[in-house]
């Protein structure tokens, strides 16, 4: 198989008997095997997936063809709790962990007939921009095995490009869906905060964590998102916007598009600028109105993010204490030792670094100077976005200042690694939807364009993105 057809046509074939759920699952499993050298996958849910496919095929034979994702194999990032295998968050802390319940997102996809075939690699606990922080292995970029796939959903993005399944799920706290989608050449969608329930996804930074799809097309992303979205009583921050996302109406004419000045200047790779500028030219030619816009507060977004996020991480990761989940150090002799030893051995260096920073900015005497100040600056960023969206429909920028970097290039310099998120964290802090769309390449490495819309405008953003995707085709 060269590449998977659209989800819509796969489902149509499954329903009409042109193919079967089992055939699709076997194809996915075969492609996972073939791509083993890329180390995109942590565990394969082979038995469970084949079993589910058989049940679905039987149902179809019996005349029951309900399900918008009927028989479609997908891969979940390994921080989604799922039955059928382990859920590790790519951490030694959770190695061997069997989820007692499933993520709402996975339940909803399964209810539509989708089949989880494997779990993808990530930076442990989703802390990273390259997948190099996985406690198990480093995923390779499908276009160049000496380079990173981006992160933290690097395994998911690589798996989609390597045809290991029809689509994959990622999580995005500061760019973790959009960056790997850009580096690998896939569509990555970060929905409005709250649009999809976070229940059953290993928490990183609760005020910006969102979950979303990594796919081959905007249509696929919209369909998968539509199946997962909506209020869930297990996540009280989830929202119901009561809008179907599945029927996109692509339209460029008359749309006003703001190009973010701050992200097209110094420090951005020339080819990245060229690809974004070319796309903007095409948009203009197709009838969109282009405006240069400025978001001065965006310069503060990364600093704001790297206070708020470690703070929330240090709080969320306090539950891994050696008593409740999986790893517990066997040599500890008392409870205090058990906490300390289990955490020291179960967490990798990046988790520890973020816990340390978070503990610092939340500690007595520093809370106001760091955490509270970051929350105040966050308000400034949120307002700046909201104000600008009164004069533009969409904003565009690169996803990252550069293309996929070499494995090992940034591992000794955490601040340099954090800079990979400089263009994506703004949307996360503001809770607005953003998409990474393949837009071009530089020396064989994909370059994505980021498009953002106002809070809740997922349907408008996906519709616009579909029109952008169709340019030049």
């Amino acid at each position, binding site marked *: 198989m060269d590449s998977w057809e659209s989800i819509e046509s796969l489902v149509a074939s499954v329903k009409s008997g042109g193919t079967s759920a089992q055939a699709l699952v076997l194809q996915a499993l075969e492609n996972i095997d073939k791509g083993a050298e890329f180390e995109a996958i942590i565990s394969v849910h082979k038995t469970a997936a084949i079993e589910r496919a058989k049940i679905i095929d039987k149902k179809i034979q019996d005349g029951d063809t309900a399900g918008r994702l009927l028989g479609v194999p997908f891969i979940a990032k390994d921080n989604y709790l799922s039955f059928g295998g382990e859920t590790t968050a790519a951490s030694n802390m959770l190695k061997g*962990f069997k989820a*007692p*319940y499933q993520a709402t997102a996975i339940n909803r996809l399964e209810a539509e007939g989708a089949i989880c075939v494997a779990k993808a690699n990530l930076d442990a606990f989703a802390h990273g921009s390259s997948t190099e922080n996985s406690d198990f292995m480093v995923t390779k970029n499908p276009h160049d095995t000496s380079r990173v796939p981006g992160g933290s959903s690097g395994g998911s993005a690589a798996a989609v490009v390597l045809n290991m399944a029809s689509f994959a799920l990622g999580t995005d706290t500061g760019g973790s869906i959009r960056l790997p989608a850009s580096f690998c050449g896939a569509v990555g969608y970060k929905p409005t*905060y*709250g649009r999809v329930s976070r229940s059953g996804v290993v928490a990183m930074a609760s*005020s910006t964590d969102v979950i979303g799809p990594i796919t081959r097309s905007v249509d696929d992303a919209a369909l998968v998102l539509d199946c997962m979205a909506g209020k869930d009583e*297990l996540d*009280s*921050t989830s*929202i119901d916007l009561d809008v179907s996302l599945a029927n996109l109406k692509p339209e460029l004419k008359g749309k006003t598009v703001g190009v973010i000045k701050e992200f097209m200047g110094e420090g951005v790779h020339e080819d990245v600028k060229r690809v974004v500028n070319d796309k903007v030219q095409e948009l203009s030619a197709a009838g969109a109105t282009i405006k240069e816009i400025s978001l001065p507060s965006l*310069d*503060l977004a*990364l*600093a*704001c993010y*790297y*206070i708020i996020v470690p703070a929330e991480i*240090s709080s969320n990761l306090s539950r891994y204490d*050696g*008593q*409740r*989940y*999986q*790893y*517990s150090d066997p040599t*500890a*002799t*008392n*409870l*205090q030792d*058990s906490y*300390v*030893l289990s*955490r*020291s051995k179960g967490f990798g260096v990046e988790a*520890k*670094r973020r*816990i*340390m*920073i978070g*503990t*610092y900015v939340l*500690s007595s005497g520093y809370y106001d*100077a*760091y955490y509270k*100040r*970051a*929350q*105040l*600056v*966050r*308000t*400034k960023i*949120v307002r700046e976005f909201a104000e600008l969206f009164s004069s533009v429909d969409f904003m565009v920028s690169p996803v990252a200042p550069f293309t996929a970097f070499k494995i090992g290039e940034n591992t000794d310099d*955490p*601040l340099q690694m954090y800079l990979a998120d400089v263009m994506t964290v703004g949307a996360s*802090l*503001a*809770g607005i939807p953003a998409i990474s769309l393949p837009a071009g390449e530089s020396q064989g490495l994909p370059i994505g364009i980021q498009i953002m819309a106002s*809070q809740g405008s997922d349907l408008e953003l996906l519709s616009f993105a579909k029109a952008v995707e169709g340019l030049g085709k």
Partner: protein
Amino acid sequence: MATLSKNDVLKLAQLARLHLSEAEVKNFQGEINEILGYVEKLQAVDVNGLEPTVQVTGLKNVMRDDVVRTYQALPEALLKGAPQREDSSLKVKRVL
């Protein structure tokens, strides 16, 4: 600008229930100081009259009835993830 000493790093580690190796202490001291230096730019921002953003949904007090419900996972399944247990309790090492 705040600068973390080696002792500050050790105290933080203690607060976070982490034991750090000599090398980790040394690396973290440098790296965290570098990161704190980077976020220092927030100090110069005029935040007068702004309220802190805690969350962005606009939702307020999402309430539900205070009743016992059966969700997907039963207590038995939840307890299975724990490293040590006795009957329906988590078992921990002695406190002292």
